């Protein structure tokens, strides 16, 4: 129960903060010309968005707690909780869309584009200053997993005919699987798929486009570099903690045949702490490096890429060679749908889910 309530609180806070975490030149997925970043209407809308989200999240949290207190069966409760969470996310997406449309309209109505001067800016040295982690950090986990698969097959004879593959909230085994050549490596395969997608993402971050602002060049360089550096560190941290968790889980249950080792739960906890704590550190670092636009001297602004975005969410630019692009709303990355590799990345990401369903 505590975990689910925690998820609601975290998701709610994240959603609330989102408009304030993006670059100042991006408001609800719309590029704002630099002379207008301090427009009072935009500030107001960001505030309203956060307040409405806070209201919705609060309401759902109360509903969730009421659900726990009601005499509904436990299995149904978790299902309803998930539905509640999705409805909450859906509502906030709807709110985003409405503010996206409003911002776009304001930009046209007040004719911002007619009053500004677009310039094209970049820095030739920026890619040399970049500090993303080298591909080795993302290859090592893959090698570990391959070794684990090989090791599993070497010990194939000694694996029992059925082994544990699912645990309930209390840590008791409630799912068993028949031994087969595929089923014994299903867990390492899931791990491998995630690791490969992480590898692709780390490479994508490195080559993703770097958009500088015309009036806060140094600050935008700093922000872009920070996002890449800590983004790749965060990805590597999740990667390693997840690898340790999966390897231990697989080794203990399949090879050692111990389904209730006391260290499962602490390990799981460590993984969650790394994932969540890392995210908080990442957000903190990013918000510290945000451009401030304290002084806006001219009517210059950097070129926008709005024409390649749909609703400020989907990016498709066939001239852009990179796989990833920084999100327009919120923090993190999204794929370039014009890059063929993105479909492979999406397929790999979906693979574990398919494996879980069909095996």
């Amino acid at each position, binding site marked *: 129960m505590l975990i689910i309530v925690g998820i609601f609180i975290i998701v709610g806070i994240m959603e609330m903060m989102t408009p304030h975490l993006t670059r100042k030149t991006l408001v609800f997925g719309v590029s704002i010309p630099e002379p207008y970043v301090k427009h009072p209407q935009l500030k107001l809308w960001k505030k309203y968005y956060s307040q409405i989200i806070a209201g919705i999240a609060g309401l759902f949290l109360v509903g969730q707690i009421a659900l726990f207190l009601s005499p509904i069966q436990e299995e149904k409760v978790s299902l309803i909780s998930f539905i509640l969470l999705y409805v909450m996310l859906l509502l906030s997406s709807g709110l985003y869309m409405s503010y996206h449309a409003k911002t776009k309209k304001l930009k046209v109505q007040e004719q911002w584009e007619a009053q500004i001067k677009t310039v094209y800016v970049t820095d030739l040295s920026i890619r040399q200053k970049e500090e993303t982690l080298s591909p080795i950090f993302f290859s090592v986990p893959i090698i570990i997993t391959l070794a684990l698969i090989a090791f599993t097959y070497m010990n194939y004879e000694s694996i029992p005919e059925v082994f544990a593959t699912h645990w309930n909230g209390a840590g008791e085994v409630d799912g068993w699987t028949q031994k087969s050549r595929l089923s014994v490596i299903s867990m390492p395969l899931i791990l491998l798929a995630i690791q490969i997608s992480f590898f692709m993402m780390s490479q994508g971050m490195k080559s993703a486009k770097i958009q500088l602002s015309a009036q806060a060049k140094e600050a935008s360089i700093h922000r872009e570099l920070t996002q890449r550096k800590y983004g790749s560190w965060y990805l590597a941290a999740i990667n390693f903690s997840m690898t340790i968790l999966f390897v231990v889980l697989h080794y203990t249950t399949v090879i050692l045949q111990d389904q209730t080792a006391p260290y499962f739960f602490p390990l799981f906890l460590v993984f969650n702490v790394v994932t969540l704590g890392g995210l908080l550190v990442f957000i903190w670092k990013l918000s510290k490096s945000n451009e401030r636009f304290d002084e806006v001297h001219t009517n210059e602004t950097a*070129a926008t890429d709005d024409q390649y975005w749909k609703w400020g969410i989907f990016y498709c630019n066939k*001239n852009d060679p990179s796989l990833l692009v920084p999100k327009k709303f919120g923090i993190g990355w999204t794929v370039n749908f014009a890059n063929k590799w993105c479909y492979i990345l999406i397929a790999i990401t979906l693979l574990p889910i398919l494996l879980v369903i069909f095996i």
Partner: protein
Amino acid sequence: MQIQLDPNSELQLYKQLANQIIECIAQGELKNGDTLPSVRSMATDLGINVSTVSKSYHELEEKGLIELKPKAKAVIIGGQKRELEETEVEKVENALKPIMAEAFARGLEKEQMTSLFQRILKQWK
């Protein structure tokens, strides 16, 4: 090594880009052997057309300042100290002459022109 292109300038974008890269080489910020971003990633970073960047890279290649290699790499080959060939010196002279003549015809003093020359040269090490 910042690049800023102005679409309202009378100078075409590709020319502006080429000029600014040349200036980076002259100032020693771009050294022999450094690589420029690929045509496509340079175009996306800047937010301009791929063909514009390509045109500017080809001009730099013609001038013998960069070498375009397979896999979309552009390597700087200018900037090092070497003996210039007679024809190259002549080329520079031919390019410079009309600009200086224009300035002179407009009434710029010879001393002013020399000091201007020195001021520009001082920017480059």
